[in-house]
C-alpha cells in the first residue's frame, strides 16, 4: 500500500467513526443495552438460583391425612420440614403454581401397616415447573430416607443386618468444581458474549453500506480517487472498532456486576474475573473481525437499510442457533469443531468460564475459518463496489 492509500483508508475510517458516534439514537440504544445487559441478566439468574436454594432449604410440605401416619409426620418435622395442613383444592393450587408439592397419606395407612402391607403415601406435584423441582426432589428423598430407616429397624428386630437388604452401596463423587456447576448460567453468559459481537456491529455495518446507497452518497464516494479496497477496509475497520467497543462494554457489565453488585449468595456457579475477561476478549477477537466483514457483505447486497435488515436476520438466526445445537447435543465435542466459526468460540468461551485457559492450538485453529471468511467477504464487497450495477436502483 502506498502512503496515499493508507491516508485515504484512514480518512474513511475516521469519517465512519465520526458518523457512527454522531448517530445518537442507534448509539445510545446499542451502548446502553450492552452495558445494562450483564447486570440485569445476572441479577435475574442469581435470584432464580437463590430462590431455588431457599426452597430446598426450607421445605414447606402441606400434608393431607397427617393423622393416619403420625410417625411419618414426626420424622419429617425432625428433618426441619415445615408441615402444614393441605388445602382441599391442592391439585388446582399445584397447577397454578401456588404449591410446589403436597403429601397425601392414605386413610388406610395404619391398617395396611398393621397387616404387614406397605402403607401408601402419595406425593402430588407438577414436574414441568422448574421452580418446584428442588422441593419435589427433597420431599421425595426424605420419604425414601424414612422408608429405608424404617425397613432397617424391622430387619434389625429380626436379627438381620441392613446390608442383606441393601447389597449395593452407592457412593457418589461429584467432580464439578464450584465454577463447573450452574451449566445454564455458563451457557447464557457465553451466549451473550457471542451475541454482543453480532449485535455490536450490525447497525453500523448496514448504515455504512445499504444506508450509504440509500442516501445516494455512494456514487459521489466512488467518484473520488479512493479505491474500492480502501473504501471496504476503512469501513470494515470502523465497524470492527465499534463492535469491539460494544463487546468490551458488555463484558465489563458482567465483570462489574459479579465483582461489586449485591448479588444473592448462591455459591460461585462460575468465575468471571479479570482473567476470564481477558480470555473472553481473546476468544472473541476473530468474531469481532469476522462478523463486521460478513455484515458489510450483507449490507452491500441491499439497496436500502430495511432490505439489509431483513437479510441480516438470517445471519442472526444462524449465529444464535449454533450454540443452542451444541447445548442440546450433549456430546463430547469433536476436534474439528474448532474449525467451525461461532461453534469454536462458544466452546472456548465455555472453557474459559470453567476456569481453564483455552489451549493455544485450539485458539489458533479457531482463527482459520474466520480469517478466510474475512478475506472472502471483503473481496466480495470490493468487487461489488467496482460493478456498474451498484449505481442502479436508487
Amino acid at each position: 500500500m502506498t502512503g496515499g492509500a493508507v491516508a485515504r483508508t484512514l480518512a474513511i475510517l475516521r469519517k465512519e467513526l465520526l458518523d457512527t458516534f454522531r448517530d445518537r439514537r442507534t448509539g445510545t440504544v446499542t451502548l446502553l443495552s450492552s452495558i445494562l445487559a450483564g447486570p440485569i441478566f445476572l441479577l435475574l439468574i442469581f435470584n432464580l438460583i437463590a430462590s431455588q436454594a431457599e426452597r430446598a432449604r426450607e421445605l414447606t410440605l402441606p400434608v393431607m391425612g397427617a393423622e393416619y401416619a403420625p410417625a411419618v409426620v414426626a420424622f419429617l418435622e425432625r428433618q426441619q420440614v415445615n408441615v402444614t395442613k393441605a388445602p382441599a383444592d391442592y391439585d388446582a393450587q399445584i397447577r397454578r403454581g401456588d404449591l410446589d408439592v403436597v403429601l397425601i397419606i392414605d386413610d388406610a395407612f395404619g391398617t395396611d401397616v398393621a397387616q404387614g402391607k406397605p402403607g401408601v403415601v402419595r406425593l402430588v406435584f407438577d414436574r414441568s415447573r422448574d421452580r418446584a423441582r428442588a422441593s419435589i426432589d427433597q420431599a421425595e428423598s426424605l420419604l425414601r430416607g424414612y422408608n429405608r430407616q424404617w425397613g432397617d429397624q424391622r430387619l434389625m428386630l429380626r436379627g438381620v443386618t441392613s446390608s442383606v437388604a441393601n447389597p449395593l452401596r452407592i457412593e457418589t463423587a461429584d467432580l464439578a468444581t464450584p465454577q463447573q456447576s450452574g451449566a445454564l448460567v455458563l451457557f447464557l453468559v457465553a451466549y451473550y458474549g457471542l451475541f454482543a459481537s453480532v449485535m455490536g456491529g450490525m447497525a453500523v455495518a448496514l448504515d455504512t453500506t445499504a444506508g450509504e446507497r440509500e442516501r445516494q452518497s455512494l456514487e459521489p464516494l466512488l467518484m473520488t480517487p479512493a479505491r474500492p479496497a480502501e473504501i471496504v477496509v476503512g469501513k470494515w475497520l470502523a465497524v470492527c472498532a465499534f463492535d469491539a467497543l460494544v463487546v468490551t462494554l458488555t463484558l465489563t457489565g458482567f465483570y462489574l456486576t459479579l465483582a461489586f453488585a449485591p448479588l444473592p449468595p448462591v455459591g460461585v456457579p462460575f468465575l468471571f474475573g479479570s482473567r476470564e475477561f481477558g480470555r473472553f476478549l481473546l476468544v472473541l477477537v476473530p468474531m469481532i473481525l469476522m462478523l463486521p466483514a460478513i455484515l458489510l457483505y450483507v449490507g452491500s447486497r441491499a439497496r436500502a437499510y430495511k432490505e439489509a435488515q431483513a437479510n441480516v436476520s438470517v445471519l442472526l438466526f444462524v449465529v444464535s442457533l449454533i450454540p443452542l445445537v451444541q447445548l442440546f447435543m450433549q456430546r463430547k465435542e469433536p476436534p474439528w469443531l474448532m474449525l467451525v466459526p461461532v461453534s469454536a468460540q462458544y466452546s472456548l468461551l465455555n472453557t474459559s468460564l470453567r476456569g481453564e485457559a483455552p489451549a493455544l492450538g485450539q485458539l489458533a485453529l479457531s482463527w482459520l475459518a474466520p480469517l478466510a471468511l474475512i478475506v472472502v467477504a471483503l473481496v466480495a464487497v470490493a468487487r461489488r463496489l467496482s460493478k456498474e450495477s451498484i449505481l442502479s436502483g436508487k
Partner: protein
Amino acid sequence: MIALERVAKAFGKRREVHAVRDVSFEAPDGAITGLLGPNGAGKTTLLRMIATLVIPDAGSVAVDGLDVVAARYAVRARIGVLSDARGLYPRLTARENVRYHGALHGLAGKPLEQRIDTLFGTLGLAPIADRRTAGFSQGEKMKVAIARALVHDPATILLDEPTNGLDIMSVRMLRDELRALRMQGKCLLFSSHVMQEVAALCDRIVVLSQGRVVAEGTAPELIARAGTSGLEDAFVALLGSDEGLAA
C-alpha cells in the same frame, strides 16, 4: 478537455438496452458545453462514463488526454462531478462533508481548510458551515454538494441535471458560479432536459436523442440548421418529437 469518440454502451442481461449508441463530441476548456436531451436519451450514462464509473462497450473517452478506463484514478483526480446522486451525510456538518472528500483527494490540514473556507464564502455557505446537513433545504444541500465536487479544484467539471429541485434563487446562484468557473478556464459539461437552462448558459450544445448525437453547435447555429424561428421549435424539429422535453 473531454473527448468522446464513437462511444457505445448497452445494459441488461443480453445487452439489449442501448443507452448510448455512437457518440462523438468534444467539450473544450474555458467553455460550458450543454448536453441536452429528453429523459432516457443517455445523458447520465455518458456522464458516468466520463466519470469512470461505467466502462464503455466501444469507443474511447479521454479527459485531458487520459483514457477513462486505463487511467481511471488519474482521471478521477482531475474531475469534479455533481452527479444525479448527490446525497450528503446528514449527521455530518457541511464542512465535515466537504472535508471528507477533500481528504480522499489527498488534501489535508490548512490548505484543505482554506479551500473549504473559500468555497463556502463563494457559495454563501459560511453561516451554516458547522451545522449538520440533516436540516438543510434542497438549495443548501445542493451548494454543499457543489463545494464537495469542487474541493480539489478540478480542471474538468461534470454536472448532471444540477438544477433539479432548485428554487429560482439557487438556480441563479448556480449559473453565476458556473460562469465564474468558465472564466477560470475550466472545462464544464452540463446535462439537462430543460432547454431554457441550456440556452441561457451554454456556449455549445450537444443534442442527444436515443443514445445518439442528433445535432451540435451554438444556439443560433442549431436554429439555423433546423430552419425554425426559435430555439424551442429547433429542438422539437431536431428530436423529431417533443416527448420528454420540459418547456
